[in-house]
């Protein structure tokens, strides 16, 4: 019986969606490898978390320790090393998140286990685990093969497995925390919420998102004019904010805002995962990009493959003409 550990990810008292997605993926995989799923719940006052995941795993290992209240890579690493060495799970799943990417690579080195990060699927090939992930900003899919090892660690990309509760009732195993002292060399100070700017793009029906393809800050007013013509709000992908061309409150994506407008017009946006994670639920998605193979065309309803410097002004004129008539 192969055991699959899933590290429950919680933040500020709430379990994050990726946790249920990972549990779903783990259960799916478990059927192909004669496996069972164990949810690893670490935190302070974990009763609530345990209740929420009880239907999603065969077993829950629950560790209650005030030192685990907020995520801390060092503390969580120590706990996981102790649990993994004791239980020897075949596979440990951790979210590819701000927390998980801080934890998994150092954990893998300490255990001397192979690690595949940001996996969007897990399959079995010839009896062995194969992890699927992307490279080159989502332009290429890759298969990761693992050497023989006592265990494997994978971090899982958000939204890879639509969550599906299993009809399980997990056996809960309360385990003592192995932590003996506060993490001396790494101390959590506080969380700071993202600053609220002038614009709340989550409230707009129509968003015009601008990406790297815009090439120059001076080209942005042209896109603003298109947004104005449509009665929409200007938004953007991360590189535009990194460059200082637009404020962070306009950023759509995993480290920015998640939006569900009636219309999302993606201008010069390639459609890398971190961006589409924030807008793929839009009702209608239209993309303009000069690269016909850009991943954005895989989620858009309509697309124009062309030079946005020509398409954007032309579109603005057509919209204005339509509205005038």
């Amino acid at each position, binding site marked *: 019986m192969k055991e699959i550990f899933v590290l429950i990810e919680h933040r500020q008292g709430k379990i994050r969606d990726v946790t249920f997605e990972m549990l779903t993926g783990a259960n799916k995989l478990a059927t192909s490898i004669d496996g069972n799923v164990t949810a690893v719940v670490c935190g302070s006052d974990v009763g609530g978390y345990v209740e929420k995941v009880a239907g999603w795993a065969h077993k829950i290992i629950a560790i209650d320790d005030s030192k685990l209240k907020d995520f*801390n*890579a*060092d503390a969580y690493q120590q706990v996981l090393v102790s649990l993994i060495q004791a239980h020897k799970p075949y596979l440990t799943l951790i979210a590819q*998140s*701000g927390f998980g*990417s*801080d934890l*998994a*690579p*150092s954990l*893998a*080195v300490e255990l001397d*286990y*192979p*690690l595949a*990060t*940001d996996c969007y699927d897990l399959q079995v090939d010839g009896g062995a685990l194969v992890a699927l992930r*992307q490279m*080159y*900003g989502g*332009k*290429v899919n*890759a*298969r990761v*093969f693992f*050497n023989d090892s006592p265990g494997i660690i994978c971090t899982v990309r958000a939204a890879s497995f639509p969550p599906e509760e299993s009809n399980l009732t997990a056996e809960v195993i309360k385990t003592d925390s192995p932590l003996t002292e506060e993490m001396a*060399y790494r*101390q*959590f100070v506080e969380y*700071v*919420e993202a600053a609220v700017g002038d614009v709340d793009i989550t409230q707009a029906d129509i968003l015009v998102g601008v990406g*790297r*393809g815009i090439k120059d800050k001076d080209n942005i007013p042209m896109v603003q004019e298109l947004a104005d013509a*449509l009665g929409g709000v200007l938004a953007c992908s991360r590189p535009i*904010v990194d460059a200082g061309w637009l404020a962070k409150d306009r950023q759509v994506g995993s*480290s*920015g*805002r998640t939006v569900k407008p009636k*219309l999302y017009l993606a201008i010069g946006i*390639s459609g890398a995962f971190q961006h589409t994670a924030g807008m793929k639920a839009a009702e*209608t*998605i239209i993309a303009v990009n*000069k690269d*016909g*193979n850009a991943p954005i*065309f*895989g*989620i*858009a309803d309509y*697309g*124009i493959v062309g030079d946005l410097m*020509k*398409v954007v002004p*032309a*579109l603005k004129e*057509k*919209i204005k*003409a*339509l*509205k005038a008539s």
Partner: protein
Amino acid sequence: MDMIVCIKRVPDTAESDVKIDSSGRDIDHEGLAFTVNEADNYALEEALLIKEKLGGTVTLITMGGRESDDTIRMGLAKGADTAIRLDDPAFAESDGAATAKIIASAIKELQYDLILTGCMASDNGFTQVGPALAEILSIPHAAMVTKTELKENKVRASRELEGGLLEVLDIDLPAVLTIQTGINEPRYASIMGIAKASKKEIALKSMGDLGLNENEVGQKGSKTRIDKLSLPVQDKIAELIPGTPEEASEKLSGILKERGLV
């Protein structure tokens, strides 16, 4: 403040078509432009800003062949003091953990207070080397850092979480920080900087120089293997609107009107 910055030369694929090469294990590099990994560029700028404020030195480390020298010289031109390139045919196809081991072997000989790397390489997207490096060197780390504040023997680092929430923590030095894009505004190298850099020596280290053997590096030294690259097949493909910008815009505005969006 003695700092080490790990930088990597990567292909610029943001706006290019990519093709899988004949081995199936990487993309075809023909016709691609190369550049410093974006997050590493931000890491270098952060080190240079700290150097300007607190004094100290910046040493660049790159694992790569001779073609990486351009990338390294650009870093020296911006203000890094010394550079080391780790080069050996045996290093090829090292996975994230093996790469971290190779870099750690070079770093452990050096004096340092802070190691900065980019949080992610835009080619493989692993987000692995920084934290792995810290573990091998037995020092603390923080990943996805968007703000640094050096204090006595510590650094206060803000890490970026989903939705823009920041996690602020204090970490003892020496430490590894992996740097997120947008943390600062990377400078351009000056003409004088470029001229000075062209005269600087880049130290070269081979596998033997680092005290490593062939079972510790490359494919042999890796526990994971990437293979069978493929181009994603889109489940759903956008209906592409043909024609000139004028024609396509005309059709698109008609579609928007039909959908009640105009």
